[in-house]
C-alpha cells in the first residue's frame, strides 16, 4: 500500500500494473517516431495526442529513472494513463494542459515554447520542478501513475528484487526465505 500517495482513488486502483490490459498494437503516430520503432512497446492512443504522450513518456522517465530500463516500461505507464484518460475527460484535460505547460522554457522574463520531449535533461527537470509547485495536481497524477505502473510492472519489480506472487511456487520455504549469507552468526 502506497500510503504517501494515497487518495481513495489511487488506493482503489492499487499498485497493480496499469499496463496489463493495454493492447500492444499499431504504432505511435507516424514519420520516424523513435519510440514507435520498437513495436513491442508501441500502443494505439485512445485519448491523448502525440505531443502529450511523448511528453508524458519523458516525464515518467525523469520521475523514476533507472539506467537498466529502456523506454518500454515508461511507455506502458503512459499507455495506462491514456486508457484512464479515455474514460475521464478531466484527466485528459489535466494531462494535455500539464504537458503543454511543461513545453515552455522560461528564461528571465521571457518564455519560449519547446516541446517537453525535445528539451534537454536539465531543462526538463526545471520544467518539472516548476510543475510540481505550480501545477501539483497534474504532477501528482503523473507521479502516482508512474509509481503504480512502473513498480507494479512485474518485470521492473523483479529487476529491483521484488519477486511477486509466491503461492504458485510453493512460497519461499524452500526458496530462500532464510538464505541470508552476509550476516555474521549471532550468538
Amino acid at each position, binding site marked *: 500500500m502506497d*500510503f504517501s500517495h494515497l487518495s481513495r482513488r489511487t488506493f482503489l486502483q492499487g499498485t497493480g500494473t496499469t499496463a496489463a490490459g493495454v493492447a500492444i498494437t499499431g504504432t505511435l503516430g507516424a514519420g520516424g517516431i523513435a519510440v514507435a520503432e520498437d513495436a513491442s512497446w508501441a500502443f494505439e492512443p485512445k485519448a491523448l495526442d502525440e505531443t502529450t504522450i511523448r511528453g508524458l513518456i519523458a516525464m515518467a522517465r525523469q*520521475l523514476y529513472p533507472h539506467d537498466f530500463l529502456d523506454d518500454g516500461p515508461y511507455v506502458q505507464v503512459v499507455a495506462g494513463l491514456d486508457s484512464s484518460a479515455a474514460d475521464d475527460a478531466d484527466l485528459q484535460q489535466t494531462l494535455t494542459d500539464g504537458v503543454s505547460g511543461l513545453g515552455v522554457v522560461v528564461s528571465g522574463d521571457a518564455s519560449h515554447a519547446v516541446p517537453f520531449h525535445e528539451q534537454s535533461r536539465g531543462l526538463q527537470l526545471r520544467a518539472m520542478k516548476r510543475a510540481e509547485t505550480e501545477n501539483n495536481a497534474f504532477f501528482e497524477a503523473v507521479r502516482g501513475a508512474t509509481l*503504480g505502473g512502473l513498480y507494479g510492472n512485474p518485470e521492473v519489480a523483479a529487476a529491483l*528484487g521484488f*519477486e511477486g506472487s509466491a503461492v504458485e511456487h510453493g512460497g*519461499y520455504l524452500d526458496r530462500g526465505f532464510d538464505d541470508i549469507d552476509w550476516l555474521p552468526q549471532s550468538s
Partner: protein
Amino acid sequence: MARTYDLSDDSVVVIIGSGAGGGTLGHELSEKGIDVVCLEAGPRLDLGDIVNDWGEMGAKLSWNDKRIGTGALNPGYPLWVCKTVGGTTVHWAGASLRFQEHEWKARTTYGDIAGATLLDWPIDAAEMDPYYSRAEDKMGTTGTHGIPRLPGNNNYKVMEYGAKKLGYQTVHTGNMSINPEPRDGRPSCLQLGFCMAGCAIGAKWSILYSEVPKAEATGHFELRPDSMVVRIVHDDSGKATGVEYLDADGNLQMQKARIVAVAGNSVETPRLLLNSASSMFPDGMANSSGQVGRNYMRHLTATVYAVMPGPVHFDRGTQMAGIVMDEVRHDDSRGFAGGYLMETLPGFGVAAIAGNVGGMSIDTPGTWGRDYTREVIENYRNMAGMWLVGEDMPQADNRVTLHDTEKDQYGLPVPVVHFDEHPNDLAMRNHAYRMGSAVYEAAGGSKSYELPPFPGTHNLGTCRMSANADEGVCGSSGATHDIPNLFISDGSQFTTGAAENPTLTIVALAIRQAELMAEAMRTNSI
C-alpha cells in the same frame, strides 16, 4: 447445515460485524446452542479469492467507503481496515501477544498524565488468563500450548542480529497465529510473504475460514454478508429490539433480536450508535455519558526501513517474522509511560516502498528523480524493515463524529475521525525511532529511514469499558451501561490500548463475553 432465521425471530442474538470480535462471539455462542444472526457489511470470499497481489487485495479487502481524517490522520484515508467476512482477521499479520499485567491497570501504573484520560480496566490479568489460553488454543498461537515457534526469515535475522548486538534479550519469532505445522484443519506456513494481503493457503488463523464454518456447522449460526446495518432500534423501555440493515440488493430489512452486539471496528461501532439516535436517545444509543466515539486510539506505530550491506529480500516469508520485546516494559526513566515492541515488517512491494519512503521519510533526496531512485529504490533488495507498535494515550477529543452534511453510498453521514498525538506518544516514538535505527546500524545498515504512522490498523477505544458509567460506554462484560441487551464486542471496548497487537485480546474478550452473555440469557436477566 447453516441455519436461516426469520426476520421476525426475536429470540436471536444479532451480531454486527464478523471480525475478530463479532466472528469469535458468534462462533462461541453457536457452540453453546444460542441462535445467532451475524450481519457483515462486506462480501464473503473464499481462499480462491486470495491472491499474492497487493493492489488487487487492497481493493478487494479494504474498507474504502468514505471517511474523513482530521488532526494527525491521513485526511482521505485515516484507517486501513477490512470490509469482508472475517474483517481484519483476513489481513492481519498474525501477532498474538497478551497484555502485560500492569497494562490492565494503566491509570494506577502510569499515574495521572495531563491530557490523557487513562482508566484502569474493570478486568485484570488473572481474570483474563484462562480466556487468553483458550484464545491461543483456538488460534493455534506459536509459543503456546506446545506449538513451536516459526522459523525466522532474512528480515528477522537482520533484526535479531542487531538487537542482540545492542544487548536486547527477548528476541524471537513471536507468538503468531500462523501454523508452523498442520493444525485444526489448516496447513503449515509456506513462507509466502503476503500475510497482510490475506493468507492464500489458510495457514494463518482467520475468522473467515477458521471460525465461520465451525459456527455454521453447529446449526445455530446464520451469516448474512453484504448487509450494512444502518440503525439499531429499541422499544419504549429503551431495550434494543433489532436492527435495520441494507441487504445485498440495497433493500432495507429489519431483523428482530433479543440481544444486539456491535463489532464493526472502532469507527463503525460508535458511528452506528450515533446514527441510531432517537427521540429517547437524542445523542445516540448508549451515549448518556457522552463517551461514544471518544478516546480513539490507534497505537503508537512508526516504521524504520534500513539499507543493509547485502541482500535481505524482506518480502520472503512471514511479514511479522519476529519481535524484540525489551522495550515493552513500563519504565519511567525513558521519559514516557508504557512501552513498545519492534516487529519486522517489509514494505508491501516496490511500488509502496517507492512511494512511502520518499513521501513519508524526511531523510531522502526528495520523492523522485535520479538521486532518489539510486539511493532508495535501487537498494530495494537490501532493505530491512521493522514496525514499532506501542501504547498511545487515550484523549477525550480524539474521537469519531458524524459529518454534518456529507453522506456515504448508504445515505449515512460520513464518519469524521480526529486524532492528535499526546506528548507521551511523541516521546515514545522518538525513543522507538532511535532504538530501531540503532538495531539496523548494529547489523551494518548504512542508512535508515523513519516513517510516521500508516493509516491505523489497530483502532481502539471508541466505546470503552469502564467501572463507572459516566467514564465509558460499556461495563466489564461489554454490555453497555445504558442498555443491558446492547453489547460492544470489538476493540472499541478497550479502556486503554496496551502495547501489544490487539487481536488476541479482542478474541479472548469475545470468548469471555459469550460466557457472560449465555449465563445472562440462561438466568433470564436479559
